[in-house]
């Protein structure tokens, strides 16, 4: 899903393939002289979750809704901050610790909007975009439970 609203290109992709952060930043800023700040957040598969050792994670999603839900939150971010570009890439499939899972890039004239928008997008990606993690460990496999701390992180954006 790619769209360009005035001078704010938005790219939303759900893919199995890895992403190259430097390349994505270069695509976002290519030919632009109005961007003064790019914030990049990468989410990476880590080896321990609540004291259990994870061998791998499998990411499942709801095709169609996942893209639309991310788009709704990108649109809200665009209405709240003066952004000059947004890229959201969420991978699906099976990952081992150390592999990339998600990338959020936000570009703006100044850093504050880019920092805040990236955090806003990540908080909502975790709590409202339809993705689910199943973890494999020495003791078996199981679905990751949602954390109240993630709901709390997303809720603070609704306070004025």
């Amino acid at each position, binding site marked *: 899903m790619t769209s360009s609203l005035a001078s704010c290109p938005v790219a939303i992709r759900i893919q199995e393939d890895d992403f190259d952060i430097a390349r994505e930043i270069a695509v976002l800023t290519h030919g632009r002289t109005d961007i003064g700040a790019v914030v990049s957040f990468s*989410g990476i598969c880590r080896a321990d979750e609540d004291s259990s050792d994870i061998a791998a994670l499998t*990411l*499942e*999603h*709801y095709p*169609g*809704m996942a893209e*639309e*839900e991310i788009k709704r939150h990108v649109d809200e971010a665009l209405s709240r901050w003066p952004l000059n570009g947004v890229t959201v890439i*969420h991978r699906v499939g099976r990952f081992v610790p150390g592999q990339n*899972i*998600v990338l959020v890039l936000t570009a703006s004239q100044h850093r504050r909007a880019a920092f805040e928008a990236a955090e806003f997008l*990540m908080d909502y*990606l*975790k*709590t*409202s*975009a*339809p*993705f*689910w*993690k*199943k973890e494999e460990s020495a003791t078996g496999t199981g*679905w*990751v*439970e*949602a954390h109240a701390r*993630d709901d709390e992180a997303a809720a603070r954006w609704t306070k004025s």
Partner: protein
Amino acid sequence: MKVKYFAWVRERVGKAEETIEPPATVRTVAELITWLSGQSEAYAYAFEKPKVIRTAIDHAHVKADAAISGAREIAFFPPMTGG
């Protein structure tokens, strides 16, 4: 209407999607969950804690009291854990 299931809801129901025809008396998401739970032990197990289940109608999140009339696709899933 088409119904989709994801993550452990899908595993418990035993299928990813199906077409269902609930009776006209089933008007809301909560009523649909109750009706599905009565269809078999698999559904009863999937929906044993209805408050945990999240629902989307036509790709948008809805609450349990949302009307299901006119829905093309209803999805049931656990709280999301992406990112």
